[in-house]
């Protein structure tokens, strides 16, 4: 059986240790655990303990000062009855659906264009150009866009007045019907560097003969894309689909920095709701219940990935 087809568990744990003497085994037992110790001190204190706390305390009411009062499912019932919770779920669903599509389609398209350039050197240069933005902290990009959206001095407003449309310039972040889409447009044209590099690696892995025979048979660009390239980067696409959704589900910083959920509740997402409940209202228990909802959503997506998608897509620059 080849390595890839074996179940993940056996693949992860097969070691080729040779026969070892008993004393040697004893020694490895000590150093084996010993070497895990530093990592585990960190993990137990700042990962396992808080993660378990979140699960337990999501069933409590806690202001963070007095001791928590356990109240069964009350937090979850409060959430289900809260229209703001459902608005935030709807917003994140729209957000994830639109942005996942764009953040997959655009990088794939750009990767294909770059891949078919005749000059290898230009391929590398374009990859570098599209990857460079990762050096800019996300928060800086958000702040620049927040300036772009400014109704008085923003770039978009100026652009509209240059085009003679100054009367109809929308109030991007101030109009509840537009704000969510304004937030989603941050990062236009969505050539996500990570996704671009993964797709490019996938295209590079297509055997030369496949492309060669397509060329000989005179297959056109469109047919080549849909019948050769798209099926052969399906693995990468599934991987990116899940990773992008998981990441979008957890995006708090963008709405927090640009709109703080407003106007009204029009840009609330579950992560932001969690943050505001805990750190603005002091409802820590209720906040943790929201974080549990996010956790369960992420867990389901991860499970889908584990179950149906192979875990590794290596990239070599």
């Amino acid at each position, binding site marked *: 059986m080849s390595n890839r087809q074996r179940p993940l568990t056996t693949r992860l744990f097969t070691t080729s240790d040779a026969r070892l003497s008993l004393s040697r085994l004893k020694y490895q037992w000590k150093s084996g655990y010993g070497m895990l110790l530093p990592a585990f001190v960190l993990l137990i204190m700042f*990962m396992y303990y808080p*993660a378990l706390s979140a699960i337990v305390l999501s069933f409590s009411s806690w202001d963070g000062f007095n001791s928590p009062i356990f109240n069964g499912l009350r937090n979850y019932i409060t959430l289900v009855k809260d229209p703001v919770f459902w608005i935030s779920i709807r917003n994140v669903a729209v957000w994830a659906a639109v942005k996942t599509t764009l953040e997959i389609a655009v990088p794939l398209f750009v990767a294909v264009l770059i891949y078919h350039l005749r000059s290898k050197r230009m391929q590398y240069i374009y990859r570098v150009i599209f990857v460079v933005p990762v050096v800019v902290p996300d928060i800086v990009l958000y702040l*620049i866009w927040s300036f772009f959206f400014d109704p008085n001095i923003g770039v978009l407003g100026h652009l509209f007045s240059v085009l003679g449309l100054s009367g109809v310039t929308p109030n991007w972040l101030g109009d509840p019907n537009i704000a969510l889409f304004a937030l989603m447009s941050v990062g236009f044209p969505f050539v996500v560097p990570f996704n671009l590099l993964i797709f490019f690696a996938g295209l590079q892995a297509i055997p030369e003969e496949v492309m060669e025979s397509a060329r000989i048979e005179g297959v056109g660009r469109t047919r080549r894309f849909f019948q050769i390239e798209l099926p052969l980067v399906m693995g990468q696409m599934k991987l990116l689909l899940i990773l992008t959704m998981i990441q979008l589900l957890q995006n708090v910083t963008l709405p927090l920095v640009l709109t703080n959920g407003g106007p009204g509740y029009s840009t609330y997402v579950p992560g932001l709701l969690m943050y505001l409940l805990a750190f603005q209202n002091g409802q820590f228990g209720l906040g943790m219940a929201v974080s549990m909802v996010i956790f369960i959503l992420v867990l389901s997506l991860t499970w889908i990935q584990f179950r149906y998608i192979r875990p590794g897509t*290596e990239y070599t620059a």
Partner: protein
Amino acid sequence: MWKDFRKDLPSHSFLIVAALIALYPFIYMIMTSFKSNVEFYHNYFGISLPLHFDNYVVAWQAISPYLLNSALFAASGVIIMALTGSLAGYSFARLRYRGKPVIFMVVISLLMIPGLLTLIPLFLEMKGLRLLNSRIGMILAFAAGGQAFTIFVFRQSIASLPEELFEAARIDGYSEVRVYLNIVLPLSKPIIGTVSIFNLLSIWNNYLLPLVLINSQGKYPLTVGLMAFRGQFVYNAQYGPMFAGYTIASLPLLLLFLFTMRLFMRGLTAGSIKM
């Protein structure tokens, strides 16, 4: 090369336009960072001469403390993760002891835990430990956050080293610690680089965790500091220095990128093995 360029002209035109739009926010940022306020209002889209380098002096004074804090958090976090992660990775990849598969599974399960789940309890825990608003607490929280992923990557990489090396070391009577120091660490240099770039990027960009754990301005890292910085300069309508500050904030990683381009791109995609 020029002939190739002409043949691929449609692709090139599309890619160049896309690149210009994608980079425009940063181009605008750099152009505006050199403008006085008069130039900002009267020549909104163009480049204005002379360049006002004094904007950078003003911005540097406001932003350098945040930059230093970020550098401290990132360097400490990355080093702690590389050391503890490689030790644990070696233990999982090469040593034999009871319960290893189960313990490894327990570590791997952490990859499914989103940072948002631990945010509130971490805050409450740090408050209890009196590590709130402490640089040490911040570093430990960062280091723990990327630990599971780091261990996983090290384990995979160390498991793929040739068995003969370890066999030979065993015959020579090397202790496990010596094997780690003399064989594993030197051979793990490439993976240490990749993982460290990945961890560096995630610490450098993290906004929420320091927002919650740090509350005095003197200890703010760049992300949280930039919000305070923006408030201060927007209030006085000093747009040149504001954009100069944003540019300064982007320079450290730009320099790193220019010097370690391939390693950087590998580090960026290290996340693809995250499950």
